[in-house]
């Protein structure tokens, strides 16, 4: 899923980086001062989640959990997921430095989109429906990310077309796994801490007056 340095053409990298910076700006503006620690802590938790390896066939994949991040954080998923990617890149060398913006956009934009689309349906209806919506949102985020990666590759060079197809196919199992885990995650939150699914970064912002 991580695109590395040197694979993409300059225009693709530049355009993605500009869009990523825009997304980050929106995310940071959506963030009330009081919710910075919450965003940071959730960002840390999502980073830990991304270190979890799940067996797939003969190998294992690491989780991304961008769908739940989008459902919980809204636009703040941009800075939160960026921080995770930055740490992975700087400390482990996963992904690339010049394509940090590309990777951020590819992961955070679908997260924000499924968040916007799915959040209205999370709290209505029964628990099963919540789980289904959460699962679809998680799988949808991964699918969109894979599509964006494929698009980047295809736009950069026609020779990548086959590689892009391989990426799409190889992500089917990851979509299923993220969907299943996302469904359980969201149904847990609905039962235990529904505030998290109701735009926590906005809903609790008026606490400022109380503290």
């Amino acid at each position, binding site marked *: 899923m991580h695109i590395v340095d040197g694979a993409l053409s300059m225009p693709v990298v530049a355009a993605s980086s500009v869009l990523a910076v825009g997304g980050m700006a929106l995310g940071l503006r959506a963030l009330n001062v009081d919710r910075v620690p919450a965003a940071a802590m959730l960002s840390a938790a999502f980073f830990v989640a991304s270190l979890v390896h799940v067996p797939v066939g003969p190998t294992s994949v690491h989780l991304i959990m961008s769908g739940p991040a989008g459902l919980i954080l809204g636009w703040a998923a941009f800075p939160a997921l960026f*921080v995770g990617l*930055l740490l992975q890149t700087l400390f482990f060398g996963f992904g690339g430095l010049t394509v940090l913006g590309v990777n951020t956009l590819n992961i955070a934009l679908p997260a924000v989109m499924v968040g916007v689309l799915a959040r209205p349906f999370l709290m209505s209806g029964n628990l099963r429906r919540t789980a289904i919506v959460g699962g679809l949102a998680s799988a949808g985020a991964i699918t969109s990310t894979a599509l964006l990666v494929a698009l980047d590759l295809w736009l950069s060079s026609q020779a990548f077309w086959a590689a892009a197809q391989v990426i799409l196919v190889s992500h089917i199992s990851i979509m299923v796994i993220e969907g299943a885990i*996302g469904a359980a995650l969201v149904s847990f939150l609905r039962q235990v801490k529904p505030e998290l699914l109701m735009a926590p970064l906005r809903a609790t912002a008026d606490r400022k007056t109380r503290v």
Partner: protein
Amino acid sequence: MSSFTLQHLPALEARAPTEEGIVQRLDPRMRLVASFGFALFVVSLPNIAGLMLALSLALVTGWAARLPLLITARRVLLVDAFLIFLLLMLPFTTPLAGPSDHMLTLWGQPASWSGLWHALRIVLTSNAVVLMMLALVGTLPAQGLVQALAALHMPSHLVQILALSLRYIDIIREEYARLRTAMKMRAFQLRRSWHSYRCLGYLLAMLLVRSLERSERVLAAMRCRGYDGRFPVNQPGRLSRLDWSFAAGLTATCGLIALLAFEPDLRWLAEVH
């Protein structure tokens, strides 16, 4: 502030280099800017020869940073694992530029030299950038990174998110590890099953819930100590002579590489492009 370095993370069970090389004496800002500048430089190099030289430069820097050989090699190879199928596919998916471009034919599919060189360029680029980054930035302590990014005018909220996550990643990861141990005690094994996925979902959700609750306590404690949205980050001092010499040395070497790579008379070094 934080003791987070890469060795705390399980995926790599690695230890940060304990030996201090000359790189560790450089200012964090210089290390960040240098590795980003180097990345931009490498991405714009046109041919294999230039990339080989850039990779050598990264290797030398890695040696100067006393990067542990095995761990670094494994990490770079991990990145390469993502690239392998690209390397295998590109020769077949790149159209032949002419009859001389034909490398071989497998199962009726012609493979091109230009595709192979393209794949090789990507591998060299990404390895050179990753190595330089691991050498310069991977060896930074967490607070060095935060300070440097703040000094380089990263938006304050972003710096705060970064600083606080760095502070709490270890704690959350340990919480995760304890929960996983307790699950193991109740005969749980992570398999390809819906049961496994559901339990993992619950586990991660529990981490999120606890993280949010912890953030409320942290915020309260920060408020008790006068937090009003601004976050004090130590201002780093001036760059030392060592920093400037490093910058000059790196720029000069890169300039030399560029000269060799772009100079038409020296194209014999890189008859492939």
